[in-house]
Each structure stands twice: as structure tokens, then as C-alpha cells.
């Protein structure tokens, strides 16, 4: 019996026809109007949209971006018929430890392009080669070059199990994990469900989890304030979540058919969640923003990516009695995130916090925004766990 090849090399695809179709659609954009002077009050500013979409149409070079991405080693892994794309860069050092980095929404594996070489080959960046990692960066199911699930049930629990399968297939018995946004949920579940295989986890955002609270637990004032703030935040800024959780399909038609519609939906989040004081390009270049958006466009994954919110409804990260992340946890708390910052006490209820860094700057996408700060913190945390 021949064992099925579950890991295969993969080349990021490029299609000239798809680029021509995208340009054609951008040329034909039917713009909405905007209230003069309203800037970003009602959502993404029309002036900014026109500017970035003109660049997208006339100057952005997707082929060049694909070429750059192709410098990494890409593979696809198949788990129960579901293809998972990932990058694997082997560490250059005496004893690299495997590290799986998981992105979130509306990001992609492209968030990690700056940190991959820094983590895999620290010596080339003036750091110590003893800190090298074997870096694994998968695309979440339904994101980027991973398959789009056709059945329900591919939630964060399932994804964590697929990640463990993948790492085993790559020959890693013990591993480190890191993530933010959905990546923080998946990383938390790796540690919760497979503690014996995890060296430690590092999170750059606190997942929207609920710790298990014994009856009669009194929350601290800071925790109460946080929960109140979070509800308030949800009222003013949580609509994307509400919608993606309940009616992702209704939203899908417009976003999959209109590149400008897709761009607006994603750009809003980079501006709101990045540490940019409203000036999105202070943090992200047009090429960075548009590479991510073009990836969503070319792979037609905005519907499937939004569906993860729907999947989460039936499998939320609510800790049950006895649920506690025992493996060492490192938290890098960046000052800007999608909602209010959870206090340490709230996180300690569910996580074995060994390392907590208050970052001076950076937001929801630190691998793009503050790669040096993030990488340094990852090295520091896992450095202490290397033995």
C-alpha cells in the first residue's frame, strides 16, 4: 500500500486573464456618492477609495507581488479532502524550534512576509542564530490559497486539529505557536487541546474568549469596565461581526462581485485596527494593503473567510470547567486593537501567563506594523523556554 502524499509543493498561481478582468471591473466601477466633507464618518472615504483604486488599476503589479511571495517555499497539505496552503522556511541556527504562525481576518499569510525571514534566519538580521525557528505559516481554511470548505464545521477547534495533523506530518512532535485575531483563537485551542505537544504559545491579541467563572466569582473593577467597554465598542463598531456571524452569504454577493466593494470592506478594518491615527498609509503601504485585497479577490475567499464568524457561533471560545491553558503563554499587548484592551487579570483567569509585554506602539496587524517589536518579543519569550 502506498501512503498518500499529503504534502505537496505549491506555486502561488498568477493569471493574466484574472488581472485583466479585475482592471476591467475597476474601470467600470459605479461609485456611490458621499456627503461632502464627511471623510470617514459614514465608513470608508470616497476620496480615499478613488485614490487607492486608481493605483490598484493603473500601477499595482500583482505579478511582481506573486514573484516576491514565490521566494518562500510553499506547500499544500490535504486533511480529509481539505487542502491547506502553507509556507515553510527552515531555521538557520543550531537548534531551530518549529513555530506555527496563524493570521486572522481580514488578513492572510501575507501579514507574515516581513517576520518569516527574521524568525527563520535571525543572524541575517543581526540577531543570534540560537533564536532561529522553523517557521510554518498556513492559510486558514477558506482563506488565501487554502481550499474553501464546502461543509459546515470547519471552526477554530477543527482548524487547531488540522494544524496539529500538519505539524505531525512535517515531523514536529513538539512545537511553538503564535497568532493574533482568529490566529489567537486557533493558537489558544492548540494549547488547550494538545498541551503535551506545545512548548508555549505567544499571542499578539487576546482572543475574544470567556473564562470559566465559578458561581459567585467577583470580577475586578478593571474587568467590569473592560466588559462594559467591549459591549459599547460592539454597539458602534461590531456590525461587521454581527453581519458576518448571521448573514455572511447575503454580504458575499456584493463583495465577491465588486472589487471596490471588497476593498472598502477590508480597508476599513486596517484603518480602524491599525495603529495609524486614521492615516492608514502611515502604517501600511498601498502595495501591502492591495496585495492582501488582491489575494482575497483572486482566490474568491471573502465569502468563505467571513463564514468563519458563522462557524464560531456554534463553537465559541467559551472555557468550560477545568479549561485552562497550562502551557506557558506570552502576551504582547499592542496599544491599538479592534476593541478595548482586556486587563491582565481577565487573561490570567484562563491562561498561564509567563510573559506580558506592553508594547509602545502597534495595532492589530503587528507583523506588518511593528515586525521588529513582534519578532523581538517572540524570541524573548520562546528563548526562555528553550532548554
Amino acid at each position, binding site marked *: 500500500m502506498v501512503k498518500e502524499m499529503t504534502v505537496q509543493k505549491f506555486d502561488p498561481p498568477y493569471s493574466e486573464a484574472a488581472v485583466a478582468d479585475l482592471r476591467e471591473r475597476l474601470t*467600470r*466601477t*459605479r*461609485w*456611490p*456618492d*458621499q*456627503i*461632502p466633507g*464627511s471623510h470617514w*464618518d*459614514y*465608513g*470608508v*472615504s*470616497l476620496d480615499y*477609495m478613488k485614490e487607492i483604486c486608481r493605483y490598484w488599476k493603473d500601477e499595482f503589479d500583482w505579478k511582481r507581488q506573486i514573484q516576491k511571495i514565490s521566494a518562500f517555499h510553499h506547500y499544500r497539505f490535504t486533511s480529509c479532502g481539505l487542502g491547506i496552503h502553507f509556507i515553510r522556511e527552515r531555521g538557520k541556527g543550531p537548534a531551530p524550534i518549529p513555530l506555527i504562525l496563524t493570521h486572522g481576518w481580514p488578513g492572510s499569510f501575507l501579514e507574515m512576509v516581513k517576520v518569516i525571514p527574521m524568525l527563520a534566519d535571525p543572524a541575517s538580521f543581526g540577531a543570534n542564530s540560537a533564536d532561529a525557528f522553523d517557521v510554518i505559516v498556513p492559510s486558514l481554511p477558506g482563506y488565501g490559497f487554502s481550499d*474553501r*470548505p*464546502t*461543509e*459546515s464545521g470547519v471552526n477554530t477547534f477543527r482548524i487547531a486539529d488540522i494544524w496539529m495533523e500538519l505539524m505531525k506530518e512535517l515531523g514536529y512532535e513538539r512545537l511553538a505557536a503564535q497568532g493574533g485575531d482568529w490566529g489567537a483563537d486557533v493558537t489558544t485551542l492548540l494549547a488547550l487541546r494538545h498541551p503535551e505537544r506545545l512548548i508555549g504559545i505567544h499571542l499578539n491579541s487576546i482572543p475574544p474568549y470567556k473564562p470559566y467563572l465559578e458561581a459567585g466569582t467577583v470580577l475586578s473593577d478593571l474587568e467590569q469596565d473592560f466588559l462594559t467597554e467591549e459591549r459599547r465598542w460592539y454597539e*458602534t*463598531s*461590531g*456590525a*461587521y461581526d*454581527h*453581519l*458576518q*456571524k*448571521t*448573514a*455572511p*452569504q*447575503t*454580504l*458575499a*454577493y*456584493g*463583495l*465577491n*462581485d*465588486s472589487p*471596490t*466593494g*471588497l*476593498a*472598502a*470592506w477590508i480597508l*476599513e478594518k486596517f484603518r480602524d485596527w491599525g495603529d495609524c491615527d486614521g492615516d492608514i498609509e502611515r502604517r501600511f503601504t498601498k502595495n501591502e494593503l492591495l496585495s492582501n485585497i488582491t489575494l482575497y479577490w483572486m482566490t*474568491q475567499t*471573502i*465569502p*468563505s473567510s467571513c*463564514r468563519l464568524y*458563522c462557524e464560531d457561533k456554534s463553537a465559541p471560545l467559551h472555557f468550560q470547567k477545568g479549561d485552562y491553558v497550562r502551557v506557558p503563554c506570552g502576551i504582547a499587548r499592542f496599544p491599538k486593537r479592534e476593541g478595548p484592551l482586556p486587563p491582565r487579570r481577565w487573561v490570567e483567569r484562563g491562561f498561564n501567563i509567563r510573559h506580558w509585554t506592553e508594547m509602545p506602539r502597534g495595532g492589530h496587524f503587528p507583523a506588518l506594523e511593528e515586525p521588529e517589536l513582534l519578532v523581538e518579543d517572540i524570541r524573548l519569550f520562546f528563548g526562555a523556554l528553550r532548554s
Partner: protein
Amino acid sequence: MRIEPFKVAVAEQVLSDLKTRIRNTRWPDSAPGAPWSQGTDLEWLRNLMDYWAEEFDWRAQEQRLGELAQFSIEIDGIRIHFVHARARGGRGIPLLLTHGWPSAFVEYLPLVPLLTDPARHGIDGPAFDLVIPSLPGYGFSERPRRAGVNYRYVAALWHRLMTELEYKRYGSGGGDFGAGVATLMALDRSDSIIGIHLTNLELAPYLGPGSRALSPAEKAYIGTSDLWWQSEGGYKAIQSTRPQTLGYSLNDSPAGLAAWIAEKWRSWSDCHGDLEGRIPRDFLLTLLTLYWVTGTITSSIRDYFDNRWHGITLGPEDFVRSPTAIANFTSQFAFEGDPPREWAERLYSVQRWTPMERGGHFAPTEEPVALARDIAVFFASLS
């Protein structure tokens, strides 16, 4: 403020562009699970879009609309479009009818023959002079290019419209945003209002200090509404916080627009999940074509933003003294709750309360006869 005749006439190029876009739709995958469980169903929508591009006859609809007397008038610097259908055989009771979202003046057209010529349709009651405007930013009405266009603003606009038409006292009716506008007309211009007729309750009454404790039925109603909000309220959350962001896709993709609007007509009408069993396909596509050719989806959803952040707050003194009729059409497919009469009585002098056995959010199109009868009986009782 000259009143000018108005005729619906869409340029051929706009219609052919629409067809091209429909044929070029980049369809998403279908959602896993039961049809419609994650939003508008792919197969259903593809059928509708095929029909829209290949068979739907907009020119026939245009001709039908052309049979109605329509006008435009400039008030407060914006063009307002309205239908003016006078009572057969002389002056009737002036009645202004206002639609809501995601709807248009066409929702009210089934009432036109019934109320302008009731006798001919076996309806016992007075005849009406109907004024059916398009809300600012919907269809052929412009929306002021500034924030703060709320119920109160529209109420004042409508009063000026009725004054221009030389109606001193008139009735006002509506559902959804239209119910909010009718309420504000009665609050702000009670001397001009004969009575108001609502098909659903848009505004929550004042519930602050000094108000009566909630009855069990009111508590149950609020409970149902909250559940409805959790499962159905995503559209409202986004439209009241980031309408512009949503507008880019809906104004650029006919499929996106159709999915967004059709989902609401299915959830809110009394259709048991079979939208086309309740609402004729040609009607639905007339509505969608209106939104598309006028490019007004973005301006229409600004209503949610403006009424939330630049809206009105009802206080303990706010009470509608004008006679009020409520025809309670609550048989929505996605049940939003059954408001009890005492809930309505917090805000209105309820003189007529009619629980309707059938019909949901779009009563004028769903149950025109039942609604016309209720309107006729109510206004007959006031004259």
C-alpha cells in the same frame, strides 16, 4: 417651488449596462447548510438574476408607472418625487403615504385604485386624494448632501409639500421609516393632521423615569424583539454605523444589491420563506431596478445612520394627540414580536387598533385590500 410633471424614463445605456453586469456576475460559492440559513440563497438568486437580465421588461413597468400622475418639486434645495392620485369624482380626504426601507413609492401603488375609487372596489368609505412621495435619497428623490436627515426633517418637508398642494389638513400614513415620519408629522404639526394610520410601530416610546411599569405582554414583546435583533439585526448594525463602506459593493454589483434587498423582503413579508409566492417577481425587480438605476442604495441606508446619531429622542412630554390607527401586521416570516396595544398607547392616542391575521412588513403590497379598508374606516370615523 414649482411643481413639475415627472415621468420615469431610464436611459437605454443604463439598462444595457445593468444587463451586462448581471451576466458578468462573479458568483460566490453556495453556503453550507439549509438554503437561506446564512443569508440569500445562491440558487434562488441566480434564477432571479437570470430573469432580471433576460426576461424582465422594465419598459413595460415604466409604461405602467407612467399611467400615474407624478411630479417633482424642489423643497429645501432638493428635488422630491411624488405620485399625486386624486379621488375619482372630486376632492377626497388628503392622505400622504410614506414608505420605508428597503422599499419605494411602488409599495403603495396597489392602494391607489382602492382608495381613490373605493366604491368601485367594494370598499365602504370615503375617497382619498393620495400623495405618495419618495423619501429623500430613495428612487427619484434627492437627499440633502449633509448629515442629520431624520424623521423630523422629512416630516417638515412633507408638511411643506402638502402646503404647496394646498392641503391645509390631511392624514398621514405609513410603515417602517414612513411610520416614523407620520408620527413626527403628528407631533410637530398636529394642527394640520386629521389623523395618522400606521402599519407597524417604528418608534419606541419613552420608557424613562416616570413611565408606567412594563406589562407582561410588553416585556414579552421586548424579549422577542431582542432575539430578533441578535439573529436578524446585522443589516441595521452596519447601516447605522458604516453605511458608506457597504455602499461601494451594493452600488457596483446588481447581485449584491438584489441579495441585500431580497433577503429583507423574504424575512419581513408574510411569505413563510417563499418570497415569490407572496411578492410577484416583476414587482421585486421593479423595486430593484429603481434602486439600481437611481444609484440610491447608499443614500437610502444613510437613514439608519442619521436617525441613530442625529436622530430624535422621545421624552415624557412627547405624545401624539392626533387620532391614531394602528393596523398591526405582524405576520413577518422572521417574527419580530407582537406589540400589545398598551405599548402603542404610551406614545399615541390609539383610536383604532386592528390586529391583522395576515400580512407582514410590506402591508400595502401584501394585503392592499385589508389595509385600504382599515384606512377608509378609520378616516370615515374622523370626518
